């Protein structure tokens, strides 16, 4: 089953409420995915600075971890939220920090990096996961969230969505892919690596692989229509916006709402009920096989 939500703010005045609105949307999708949840929040991009999200960091390890990062990037700053940490460092230092994170061990996992992405996920009821990370207080330009009812792989934090496989990129998926093993082998041959056995991670990897070859997001998504087999509604986040795609059969639900202030996506209308001005929004279902794309001017 699974639930997906997305919120893209057109009106900057809503940015302080991004986290609160997303948390509320995520909670309403609990019945569609009660076993784990995750969300990516985009915002706070600063010129020349990269943000890296890591997870699996216990409080007792924070000191060692911090010292290790500072050894490769003296000006790095840290925000700790539950077992996740957001490191902000210079773009130049990003590869060294990432290498440190990946070599740190003790269950610490690199999650995402980019100019503006922060990505959190965990096992448990969506409301509890959101509270653990303080989603309601987060601000930003757009956010994507997912509530998971596992089908193709285990209920673990690693199996929770979103999946990030490229800079500022993330993907959430409702559905199940049938050719993910074949595609994963092809992508691994092309140099990609995967953290899980999850089908959705393969979809994310596939899109990142296309984007890394210089394709635009809409081109990569269009190509996925012929290369991915199975059921899917995807929402893909990038630094400046998000995109939506449904497979040709379109049995996985999707509904969108647009006002002058925002574009919202959800698996069901219920997720929109608390959005400001929703009674005047244009509410519609995205058509199958059509790429919908919203972007902030860079």
């Amino acid at each position: 089953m699974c639930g997906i939500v997305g919120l893209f703010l057109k009106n900057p005045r809503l940015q302080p409420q991004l986290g609160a609105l997303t948390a509320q949307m995520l909670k309403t999708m609990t019945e569609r995915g009660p076993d784990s949840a995750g969300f990516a929040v985009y915002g706070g991009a600063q010129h020349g600075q990269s943000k890296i999200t890591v997870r699996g960091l216990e409080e007792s390890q924070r000191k060692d971890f911090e010292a290790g990062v500072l050894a490769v990037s003296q000006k790095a700053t840290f925000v700790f939220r539950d077992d996740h940490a957001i490191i902000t460092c210079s773009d130049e230092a990003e590869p060294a920090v990432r290498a440190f994170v990946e070599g740190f061990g003790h269950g610490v996992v690199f999650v995402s990096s980019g100019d503006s992405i922060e990505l959190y996920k965990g096992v448990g009821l969506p409301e509890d996961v959101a509270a653990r990370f303080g989603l309601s207080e987060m601000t930003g330009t757009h956010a994507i969230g997912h509530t998971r009812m596992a089908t193709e792989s285990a209920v673990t934090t690693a199996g929770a969505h979103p999946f990030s496989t490229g800079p500022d990129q993330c993907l959430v998926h409702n559905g199940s892919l049938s050719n993910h093993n074949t595609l994963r082998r092809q992508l691994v041959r092309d140099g990609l690596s995967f953290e899980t056995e999850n089908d959705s991670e393969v979809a994310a990897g596939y899109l990142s692989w296309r984007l890394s070859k210089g394709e635009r997001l809409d081109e990569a998504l269009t190509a996925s229509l012929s290369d991915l087999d199975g059921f899917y509604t995807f929402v893909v986040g990038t630094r400046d916006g998000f995109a939506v795609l449904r497979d040709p059969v379109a049995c996985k639900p999707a509904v969108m709402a647009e006002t002058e202030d925002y574009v919202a996506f959800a698996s069901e209308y219920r997720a929109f009920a608390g959005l400001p001005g929703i009674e005047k929004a244009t509410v519609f279902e995205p058509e199958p096989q059509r790429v919908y794309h919203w972007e902030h001017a860079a």
Partner: protein
Amino acid sequence: MSATLEKQVIDLHTSTVRVLNSTLQSEDATGAWTILHPEGRHSLAVGLTAPLDVTIDGQAGYYAAGMNQRANVVIKGNAGPGVAENMMSGSVHVEGNASMAAGATAQGGLLVIDGDAGARCGISMKGVSIVVRGSVGHMSGFMAQSGNLVVCGDAGEALGDSLYEARLFVRGTVKSLGADCEEKKMTDEDLAILKDLLKEAGITDYPAESFRRYGSARRLYNFNVDNASAY
């Protein structure tokens, strides 16, 4: 008659879907009802058997007015998947758009959708009449067995795939016809049925003559008498 004119309200900010449905399904329920703050909740006003007038004042979620008998249900906003599924009689009127599988397996009554309907509108319909003022998505009328589907806009891919019977009327374009669905000549009987349905749905701006009629070519396996011996 005075009781039927009294306005009866159930507010889902203070009540629950379970209370709503058990109240409207009760043998004592009569007259007109308004449901406030539906907010996309599922299974609103389902399984009604009395000739009630029910207004859902906003957006409905999954299976709104499902299994309806005799009640007239108006949804002031959009409806989620499976609106009026398995309706037996009465009417359901969606003033916005409907999601996928509107009127699925419905055996009777009238479903009117003022906006568009999503994929698989009228899937496996068994006698219902469905009138869509806008367009319908792919695989509408899939395995339709009986009834009428009227589409004032366009139809998506594979219209009427594997249909048994049922009349399909489309005014706009049909992206493609499904297996064993073909265009048929509009007979006087078809035209009379279509005119009645448009009138019942309150559609006056599209003349019945501007529609085309589709139906079963009856060429699939189950229509071939030679296969009868297989049973």
